[in-house]
């Protein structure tokens, strides 16, 4: 792994990366200076393998949150390029503006035509600024809703990709009705007469994720999260200490595994050891397959049955008792 040093390192990976770097320099010594280090190298390789396995097979919720935010993780744009063909982006909310933080468009998935919605994150500063770090303004949600209605009108299934820390908490966003825009998406998504398949690919931050984040199937990547509030904000509210986000991540039960256990997620797509960024092509392929399979299942249902079952799905969510 010659690109070890250049790789983005998550805080919890540091011990592994240190060890990997040590291994690199040993190998370098052995090659360049002809030192006889075969035994040491083999031992260190074994150690690196063991640590890697231990580290990545016992991930805490907070470590998964970090992986979900990894900048090299496949983003909505990558799925559009890799999983779909004939992508036509549709711009604007027809009311005020076009929000680049929200992708909306039409595409082919295999032989099927679909509408695609997704939060967008960038991989460099320019992209991140353009995409507002994945946090939509009201215009983004209104564009998404417009395309939901378009899909509804022309019978196109809707596929959505969740990857946002949340709706943007700006001043003008409030004035322009951020809450109204999200609420309207929720109402519309609940009643479109076409299948809706949602994929949690990274961050699923609160109302901004939910606006395009429920439907007939919820597929979660192994290290994606979906939460009512960010771990940092939760820690701030409870303890006035954002640093206690790790603890909050555990309490909130926000991992893909938690969602599956609670019956909220239908499927968890496995990621390679260490996260989707280690093998994006395989992960995106698996997502494409899972989405196509879900659409096959849902395609068999008449529209009335589809929206009735979507409503029942939502109505069943919640835990309470009757005295």
């Amino acid at each position, binding site marked *: 792994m010659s690109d070890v040093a250049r790789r983005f390192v998550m805080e919890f990976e540091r011990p592994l990366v240190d060890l990997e770097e040590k291994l690199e320099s040993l190998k370098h010594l052995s090659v360049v200076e002809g030192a006889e280090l075969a035994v040491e190298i083999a031992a260190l390789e074994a150690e690196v393998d063991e640590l890697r396995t231990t580290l990545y097979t016992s991930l805490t919720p907070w470590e998964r949150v970090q992986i979900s935010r990894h900048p090299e993780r496949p983003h909505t744009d990558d799925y559009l390029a890799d999983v779909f063909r004939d992508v036509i982006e549709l711009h604007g909310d027809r009311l005020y503006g076009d929000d680049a933080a929200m992708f909306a468009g039409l595409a082919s998935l295999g032989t099927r035509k679909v509408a695609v919605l997704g939060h967008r994150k960038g991989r460099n500063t320019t992209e991140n600024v353009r995409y507002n770090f994945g946090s939509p303004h009201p215009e983004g949600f209104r564009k998404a809703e417009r395309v939901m209605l378009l899909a509804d009108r022309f019978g196109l299934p809707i596929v959505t990709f969740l990857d946002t820390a949340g709706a943007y908490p700006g*001043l003008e966003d409030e004035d322009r009705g951020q809450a109204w825009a999200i609420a309207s998406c929720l*109402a519309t998504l*609940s009643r479109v007469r076409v299948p809706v398949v949602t994929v949690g690919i990274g961050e699923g931050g609160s109302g901004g994720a939910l606006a395009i984040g429920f439907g007939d199937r919820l597929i979660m990547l192994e290290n994606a999260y979906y939460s009512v509030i960010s771990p940092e904000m939760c820690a701030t509210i409870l303890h006035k200490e954002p640093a206690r986000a790790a603890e909050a991540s555990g*309490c909130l039960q926000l991992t893909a595994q938690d969602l599956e256990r609670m019956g909220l997620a239908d499927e968890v797509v496995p990621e390679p050891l260490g996260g989707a960024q280690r093998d994006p092509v395989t992960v995106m392929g698996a997502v494409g397959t899972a989405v196509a399979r879900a659409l096959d299942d849902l395609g068999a249902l008449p529209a009335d049955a589809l929206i009735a079952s979507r409503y029942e799905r939502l*109505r069943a969510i*919640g835990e309470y008792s009757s005295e």
Partner: protein
Amino acid sequence: MPISDWFRAREQRRYTAPSEPPRGSESLADGVWVRCEGCKRTLYAGDLERGLGVCPSCGRHHQLTADQRIDMLCDPGSFDEIDGDLRSGDPLEFRSGKPYAEAIEAAQDNTGLPEAVLTGRALMGGLPVVVGVMDFRFIGASMGSVVGERIARAFESACDRRVPLVLAIASGGARMQEGMLSLMQMAKTAAAAARLADAGVPYVAILTDPTMGGVTASFATLADVIVAEPGARIGFAGPRLVERTIRRALPKGFQTAESLLGHGMIDLVVERGSLRETVIGLLVCLAAGGE
């Protein structure tokens, strides 16, 4: 009957009065004297209650308890609670900060309410309605499974009986101690609201101080007509978060009913003294359309 008489005409208080002033003390306390956060004057509690919680000096609309809200909105004695038997669980066994189960128990003891919302059938000006009122004293009237369920059932009850729905809303947002189950109540209540809208049954929302977060971003703003009380704080993101985001002080009046009226987000700002008549007028008008 003048509106102030509804308080006096109240036959009985169905829930015990709070034993101590609520935290933050913006709501009406049970003590003899209360301090108005608007004008900082000390007021006689009886005067404030007779004035429907509106400060006689500065006009500030203080928060009302669920019982007070029912009394000021509904015809005397007409409120008939539904789904009063629902109780929150502790699905996440949330232990960070104050354990959730304890927080619920404390809120129940403090308010005499089973949860942050009361829903039921009632009459308003003789019109049958389904009504729901939220009480901010109960864990900030945050929306967990029970609030979401009662609100969804209120929508369904209005839909089944084809009678208008009136919700008096206050909330800090989603109830984080219920995690994703809480977030999904937004989708659940929005879906129920969409069904009522599709059925052509009127829904009037009264946004009161404060209405924030996941409640604003779901059923609260999906009403046919959105009425707000003067000075009510209404928004999605909390003001402190917005301030941190924009890195400057917030303008005066930000996220208030009046500011949102100016931005075209709500239909009306109505003083509490004429709120009941206004809502009845709206319902009469909306209901007349189908006849």
